[in-house]
Structure formats: C-alpha cells, structure tokens
C-alpha cells in the first residue's frame, strides 16, 4: 500500500492516469477497478501509443491543474495551520502526510467525474447527432447491409466475408474498434454512396447495444458467430448475453439470419427458419466433407447445388471451416462467382494476432492468437495444437478476462484441456492463472509449467526456450487495464 501511494506522488501521475483512462476506452468502471488493483503506478508499461486528441489534451491539462492545485492547497493549509492558527505539530504533520498520500485518490476520482461530465454534457449530445445523421444516410444507401455479431469470432468472420465479396462487388467493412454507434457512424460518414455491400461488426457490451446498432444500420443479413461467457462480467449472466445478441432478430428476416450451429447457446435460441451453419455444412443446403487443418492452413470439400468445390485457406484451425463455408454461401447468394470467391479465400492473409503463424530463428513456429480472449476460441486453439504432429507444443497465456463468476470454472476447464493436448504451459502472471494451474494439476499434467511476470518478459526469452519443430501458441494478451 505504501509503495502504491508513494508511486502516486511522482509528477508524471496525471499523465499515467489519463493514459489508463484512454486505455480503458473511457470505461470509468474499468478504470476505477484498475486503480484499486494497481500496486505501483510507476511500473505501468505503456504498451499502447497515447493518442493526443482534443479530449485527452483537455483531460491532461485539467488533471495537471488539479494536481498542482491540490498540492498547493495542502502546503498552504499546512503553513496556515502552523504559522497562523498555531495548531500543534501532532495535528499538522498527519494532515500534511494524509494530504500528500491522498493525491492519487483525489486525482483519480476527479478525473472520473470530469470524464463523466464531459460525456454527459458534450460527447453524448454530439454522438446522438452524429448517429442520427449516419442512420439517415444509411436509410438511403442502396447497398446490402450485413451485420456480424456474437461473443466471439466477429472480426475473423468479417475479414473472411470481406474477402469473399470484394472480388465481385464493391464492398466496405468497418475497421478495428468501429463496432460502437459512434464508430459505425464515423464509418458511414466515410462512404461514397456507390458501395454494393456494407459489412458492420456489432460490438455488444450491455443490454440494448445490439438494438441501438441495428436501428442505425437496418441490416438485410445478420450473422451470429457464437455466444459464450465472454464479457460476462458486464452482462452478469448468460441469459442477458443471449437476449442482447438476439435483439437482432427483430430487424432481419429469419432466412437471412445465419447462426453458428456449433455454438450450443446460439443454436438453442435460434428462431425457426433461421440458417444454421456448422462444421458439417449449412442447413442441408451445403455439405462440408473431409475438413483438415495444420500449420499450412485449413481445407475442405464443399458440396453445393450438386457441385463439388475445394476450399483452401491459410487460416488455422478446423473451427474456421464453418465461417469460411458460411461466407462462401452468403457470397453465392449475392451472385458472386464461386471460383472467384474460392481463389480470393485461398490468398487471404491471416488477420493479425488471430491464429497468425510466424517462424522463429530457432525453427519453431509461433502462433500469435493474442487478440483471441474468449473461452470458445481458447478451446479451439488448444484442440488445434493437440492435433498437430510437431514434436513439442507450448501454450502461453495469462488467462481470459471479463468472465465474472465463471472465471474459476472456465479456467479450470482450460487447464484440463491443456493437460491432454500440450507438452508445456507458460503462465503469464494474472489473477486467473491459479485456476489454470489447478486444472492442470487435477488432470495430472506431466509436462512443464513455466511462470513469467509479463508477456514482454516471456518474449525476451522465447528464442532460448524453444527448439526447432516446436509450436508455441500465444493466447490472449491482457489489456493493461486488467493488470
């Protein structure tokens, strides 16, 4: 505790706090949780580039002002108490010490209040105006609008669909974190009006999110990529997650609602006449045969309309077959040529940090899955590792975030699955790894377990720890706000 408060006295503390607020994506609850958890503000590794926007400049200036103001106030009062009021030292010194040590708390809560006020008074009205404009623009836009939503796999599905369609139609899709009303509105603002297909990734964090996005976009087609415990800390329970995601069904005809049938929760709640896609095929309309996956990529035979097609992709993992086939099917429904779609999927690059393979100097293969932070993805990645024929398999993870009350259960299951599929586990320090270790021990794991304080520390030693013909899979890298 002493180190925490001493580290909060440095002159750089206003910057550190504003940086973390930005890194928390201005989620004030996440920011406060980080503040409570943090043991040393000076040991914060700035992994992201700090963006100097108008908002952050105002916040920085205000926080620095408050920092100086607070310290001056403490010192002025101390002098006043001592020189004029003549209070005894036994009262003054504790006041001075308390005042100084309370500096980070004062700054943090002030920042939260300022951020909230700024959002309510300035940002929210502006956002409303921008989203209304986007809604109006989209209502007149002739393009086919496709929404991608779910607890996991959205970004990969979006990339696959973009690739499938872009060769035949003028297609645009949202980027990176453009999955909120404001993000989507900025995307809509950039459209030229002659696009033929628009693909939107919908992010859901709280009940009502999907409804709000669907009201802006009014999609013609929607794809639910799966439902699981990801973001459970925000939804509180799975029922809320399911209900939020299925808010989409009010906006799309059932036959244009594609649902991942390999996700039990999604399948269970799918409306009648909706289109289920699985690793076996799509609702009797498309059949998948002989799926295989290794370090070179993923392949399968597709039987559609009595024709046989060979699907080949550089994406890794048998679980990719279902989204690849579904995207192929949607593209054909939108009158794209099948061989063009397959050719484009063949050359599609693996999305960054999503089962992205890289070769190391030692001859080992590193699979970077650091953007995958959900239980289903973790299980799929472990299974993929387990099926490889390479000599040694290593799995690296700090565990998963935002699983709420399911944290222990899910991580223990991951541990148990790892015990059967890998030779070595590297655990990056976090509150969750103890459960993974329990799962490993309960399953009598015979391989080795290594511990590292951070992912950066592990990566420094990676070449020393690996052999040729080894596969190392890095799963999830915790955002700083969770450390």
């Amino acid at each position, binding site marked *: 505790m002493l180190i925490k408060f001493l580290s909060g006295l440095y002159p750089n503390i206003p910057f550190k706090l504003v940086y973390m607020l930005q890194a928390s994506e201005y989620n004030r609850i996440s920011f406060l949780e980080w503040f409570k958890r943090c043991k040393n503000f000076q040991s914060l590794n700035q992994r992201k580039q700090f963006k100097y926007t108008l908002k952050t400049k105002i916040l920085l200036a205000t926080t620095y002002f408050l920092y100086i103001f607070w310290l001056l106030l403490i010192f002025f009062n101390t002098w006043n108490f001592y020189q004029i009021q003549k209070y005894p030292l036994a009262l003054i010194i504790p006041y001075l010490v308390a005042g100084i040590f309370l500096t980070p708390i004062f700054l943090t809560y002030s920042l939260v209040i300022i951020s909230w006020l700024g959002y309510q008074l300035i940002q929210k009205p502006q956002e409303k105006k921008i989203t209304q404009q986007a809604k109006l623009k989209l209502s007149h836009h002739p393009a086919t609008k496709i929404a991608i939503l779910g607890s996991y796999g959205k970004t990969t599905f979006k990339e696959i669909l973009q690739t499938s369609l872009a060769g035949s139609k003028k297609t645009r899709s949202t980027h990176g974190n453009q999955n909120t009303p404001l993000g989507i509105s900025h995307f809509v603002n950039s459209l030229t009006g002659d696009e033929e297909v628009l693909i939107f990734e919908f992010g859901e964090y709280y009940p009502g999110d999907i409804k709000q996005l669907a009201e802006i976009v009014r999609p013609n087609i929607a794809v639910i990529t799966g439902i699981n415990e990801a973001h459970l800390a925000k939804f509180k329970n799975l029922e809320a997650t399911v209900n939020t995601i299925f808010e989409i069904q009010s906006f799309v005809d059932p036959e244009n609602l594609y649902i991942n049938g390999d996700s039990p929760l999604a399948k269970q709640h799918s409306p009648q006449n909706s289109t289920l896609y699985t690793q076996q095929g799509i609702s009797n309309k498309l059949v998948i045969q002989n799926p295989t996956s290794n370090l070179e990529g993923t392949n399968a035979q597709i039987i559609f309309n009595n024709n046989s097609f060979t699907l080949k992709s550089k994406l890794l993992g048998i679980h990719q077959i279902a989204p690849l086939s579904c995207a192929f099917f949607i593209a054909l429904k939108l009158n794209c040529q099948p061989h063009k779609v397959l050719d484009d999927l063949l050359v599609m690059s693996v999305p960054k940090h999503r089962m992205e393979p890289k070769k190391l100097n*030692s*001859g080992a293969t590193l699979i970077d899955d650091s953007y995958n932070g959900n239980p289903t993805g973790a299980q799929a990645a472990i299974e993929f590792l387990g099926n490889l024929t390479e*000599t*040694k398999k290593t799995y690296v993870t700090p565990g998963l975030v935002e699983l709420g009350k399911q944290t222990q259960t899910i991580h223990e299951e991951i541990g148990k699955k790892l015990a059967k599929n890998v030779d070595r586990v590297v655990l990056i320090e976090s509150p969750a790894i103890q459960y993974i270790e329990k799962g490993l021990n309960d399953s009598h794991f015979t391989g080795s377990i290594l511990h590292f304080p951070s992912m950066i520390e592990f990566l420094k*030693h990676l*070449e*020393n*720890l*690996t*052999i*040729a*013909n080894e596969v190392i899979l890095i799963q999830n890298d915790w955002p700083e706000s969770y450390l």
Partner: protein
Amino acid sequence: MKNVLVIFGGRSAEHDVSIITGISIISALSSLNEYSVHPLYIAKNGGWYSSEKLKQMETYQNQSEIESILKNEKTWSLDFKNGLTLTQSGLFKKHLEISVAFPAMHGTNGEDGSLMGLLRFANIPFVGCDLEASSIAMDKVLTKQVTAQYGLKSTPYTHFTDIDWSQNQQTILEQINKLKYPLFVKPVHLGSSIGITKVIEPNKLTQALEVALHFDNKIIVEEAVPNLIEVTCLVLGNPPALTTSLVEAPKWHADFLNFEDKYIHKGGSITKGSSETTIIPAPIDDELTKQVQELTKRTFTSIGGNGLIRCDFLINSETREIYLNEINTLPGTLYIHNWKKSGISSSELIDRLIKLALEQHENNKKYTYTFNSSVLQTAQGGSKKLSQI
C-alpha cells in the same frame, strides 16, 4: 540461487568468437530463474571486468563503449579462499561468491585446460571438460595418439616442432613426402581453422609450413580424405549417460571449412547455423549416422570428457571409412543451433550443463587427494640448526 560466472574473452586468436559464445550462454542463463548470472570478461589487454553492460552484445559491437568500460571500470580479481570469490578493486570492495563457473574462452589460455586448472585450484564446479580432456583435445597430435588406443581411425600423418624444423628440415620434408597429396598443414594447438592450408602440390608445401609455424610451435601434416563428406556430431553428459546430437554437415566454399565459413559467411555455420551454412541432419544414411554418433561417444570417453564436446569426422563416401579429424571441448556457441534441431532448447542445454558440472564436482569428492605420511620425518635438506651441525 546459484551464482554462475561466465568467463569469456581472453588473450587468444579466438577472443571475438569467445564473446559470441559467452553472450549466448548469458542469454540462455537469463531465461532460467534458478541462476544469477555474472559475466567475467577478460579483455585483450588481460584485464578482468564484470558489469551488467558486459552481458549485452551491443556493448562489444560499439568500439567506443567497450573502450570506455575498459578505461573507467575497476578490474576484478579472483580470491581462492573458501572456493572462488570475485572481488572488485577499489575503496569499497565488492565480493561475489561463485557457485559454478562456466568457461567460454576458446583457444589458448582458456579452452586448452589453462582455465580449468585454475578452477580446479579453486575447487568449485565448472562446466565442461576438465584439464586433461581439454589439453588432449587442444593438441591434434595427442588427440590422434590417445583416441587411436580406443580404435578411432585417423588419416596418416606426421608432426614436428619448430626446433625440429630449424635443425632437420630435410628429414621432415622426406617424412612428409611419404604421405599422399593433397595434404593439410595445421598448427597443432589452434582452432577455428586458423593457420590451416590445403597443399595440393609439393612446391606449395614449404610456404604452408612457414604459415603454420607463424601461429604455433608444433605442426601436423596429414593426408586429405578423398570422396569427402565432412560431418560433425556433439555429445552431452557425464559418462556413462551420454546424449548425442543430430549429425551435421557444414557447407563450405573454399578448399575446406575455414574461419570465414565457420563465423562470417551468411552469419557463419557455427555462429548462425542456418540452413544456408549447414545441413542438419547430414545427408548420410542411417547406418553411417549411427556409426558417427557411436564414435562420438567413444571419443568422449577416450579423452575423459565431461559435459559436452564436438567431434569432426571425415568420411570417405566410397569406402565408408570414418576418420576422426578433431575434437572441440568448447564449440562456438555450444552449437546451440544443432541442439535446437535435436530437441534441446538453449536454456535446457545450459541448465543441463550446469547440473552436469555440479554432479561431476560431487563425484570428484569421493577421491582422496591428501593423506598423512611419515616421509617428512626422514627428509634431508634445508638449512640446519646449529645444534645439528
């Protein structure tokens, strides 16, 4: 936590290669939580230095930085009281008790057994071969003579010293001319292919001998192997529990695998070990591979090896005869690139070597080195007391 002292550099022709080996050992040790790593760099001027900066390769690549360290840092010395302690000079001396030493000094005054003798004196565990094995391996003639007793073949050879050459040149040349050309002329004690010449015609012989004599006082001249496949194999362990590596075939561009190929060309077959400079596994059949691996183990045992050695063999691909060419008790970078392909990571290799050193040190404790005797009672000599005259 054990304090491991990595000793590298030194006053030898292989000083720079030693830095590469030392840094790779330090890097691998840093990945292991059970050791505290301390570098001991012996500069070309003979000074001993130890600092955190000396753990980074960038320091040695920057001439001004290394000169600054040599100029400004205080030197260190060794204290042999109660084991080995590293002491830094100065008003406030720093002391560091060493648990295990890791020699990484190639060539003369290091790999040849000199350093091992010093470490024996300190009576602490040290990694790798002991004094006897190191000095045998360092001498190409001794290597052939010792290993021959264990059935290991060498190509026909002759040898002489600089004194022999100055007194009996004609006799030496006659001995050499009994061998079949082409011949290899080599300094006996040097490594990394320094001072070696391949002599194809007799009229080039004398020049080759003079070059070699420039580097060493003892020279060996041996026949080349026709239909040559050159291979390398390593062995790890303390006898009898030995593990061999994959057999490797270095690629070379000159008449033989020279310094340039080993360390410079495309990063070096030893320092980089990439597929452009070496082939792992070597392109020989399984039977030959097994033979090479067995011969490597036999060589290791014959010289009394510990820890790790590398053996270079010359194979006549037509007759399938395998000749031992050289032994190296401290291969550059410990041939980490081969061990990785053999299934052992660099940190695992280093960890095993340290544990082997500890095991060997424990083992040596069972031997008696001193005992009481009455020999002093009857000894004569020294100055006598007046009463004794």
